[in-house]
């Protein structure tokens, strides 16, 4: 069961993610990954004055993927689209206490979020 020893944060986010689901109305959406490869993440962002007002996620993947997507959606709220230095997979790996071989999962989460924000920048 060594592989099932998740950190408290991962367990909490996996069991009770407060921000899973989707946003309706005027939102931007981003996605990355494939279910057949084990991870698929989607974000919905509602923007106001260049900042993320609300963020929601949907995730198919391991507990780390679900926890990371939830954490990123939460951290994004209130932040300007201009600043994205907070979205650092290595920092996220530390926060979630991820094993090294799971870093690829965080890259999918990052790609999904950047896919969403790139649509805002392009619009």
């Amino acid at each position, binding site marked *: 069961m060594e592989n*099932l020893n998740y950190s408290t944060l991962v367990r909490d986010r996996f*069991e009770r993610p407060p921000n899973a689901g*989707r*946003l309706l109305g005027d939102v931007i959406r981003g996605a990355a990954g494939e*279910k*057949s490869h084990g991870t698929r*993440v989607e974000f919905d962002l509602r923007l106001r004055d260049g900042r993320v007002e*609300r963020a929601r996620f949907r995730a198919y993947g*391991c507990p780390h993927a679900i926890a990371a997507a939830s954490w990123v959606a939460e951290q994004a709220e209130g932040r300007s689209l201009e600043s994205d230095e907070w979205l650092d997979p290595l920092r996220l790996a530390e926060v979630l206490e991820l094993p090294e071989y799971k870093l690829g999962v965080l890259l999918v989460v990052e790609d999904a979020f950047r896919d969403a924000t790139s649509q805002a920048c392009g619009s």
Partner: protein
Amino acid sequence: MPTMKPIYMDYAATTPVDDRVARVMCECMTRDGVFANPASSSHQPGRDARGRVETARRQVAGLLNASPTEIVWTSGATESDNLALKGVAHRHAARGRHIVTSRTEHKAVLDSCRQLENEGFEVSYLVPGTDGVITAERVAEAMREDTLLVSIMHVNNEIGIASDIADIGRLCHERKVLFHVDAAQSAGKLPLDVDAMGVDLMSVSAHKVYGPKGIGALYIRDQLGNRLEPLIHGGGHEWGMRSGTLATHQVVGMGEAFAIAGQEMEEEARRLAGLRRRLWDGIRGLGGVWLNGCPERRAAGILNVSFEGVEGESLLFALRELAVSSGSACTSASRESSYVLRALGRDDQLAQSSIRFSLGRYSTGEDVDRCVEIVTREVNRLRSLAPPAGGESARDQAI
């Protein structure tokens, strides 16, 4: 956070020692008991220990319809598989250097074959049919003039499907090829008869049959005599094929476990088939659930199921109120899908989201009902978190 002890549904991985087995084992350990070395024939305590060992040998032979002199004690099915494959290959290489096995064998067989390949042997690895079964036809196609040995497991440990052992045995007999069967998953669950099945070597283990871990046996047909090259050299125990002082308590534990299994197998198989049906009827109600393996050829107790729309590692963690096995190596870095499930035609997602429920002697209807409740709750929850297959989420949350 679950705090209760998980419901044990992993009997195909191992079983607890039956109280009746533990009792006879305890009789062979302390100074008041039968603790002497069974090889010490010069005194009565040694002869008493030998007596207990030989009773156990008869009990194990009885379950396989073999003669006691055809049973060699080992440390478990892994050693039995190693002894069978390497023992035959090393001693009989002059007869041929080709082995036929399947890709879905236990690692003990596959890794032994890899080692023999390193030594210059050639191995054909069969692919099972879409029902998970290895047939005599597939074996016949792979056989060559120089085929020395065929090694096929009886019941697959992952999906619980039984292959055509008697048909393969007949084929091997006709072609004068030796036939080894790993019966670790079927001993005590399905009737075994080494003669009717045409088997020359059969690996069995105690801990899958409510006996102790660390003890197993290899059936070696009489005609093969002492003609297996041993893996372990020493005092010449077990007709020179497996040296080392016999662990009397382990041996008598295996004997008792096999004797009990023989007496209770028929009724227990009926009971487990009923529980397994109850489990499947409960789980299938979720929708998007796939039964892995042909339903008619299944060993009682094993139910392998794939869930659409949920990822394997998350599923296993979500189901931690249950002690079950994942059907794939999805929790490892490799994210390798089960070969068995891929052979059944399952795609990556379904192969990675399979769970093996294996029921056993202490499983109850209450356990099964609770299991259905937990699986239903958690699969629905994980599906609600996941992106939809067709682009729209199943869970709308308007803010």
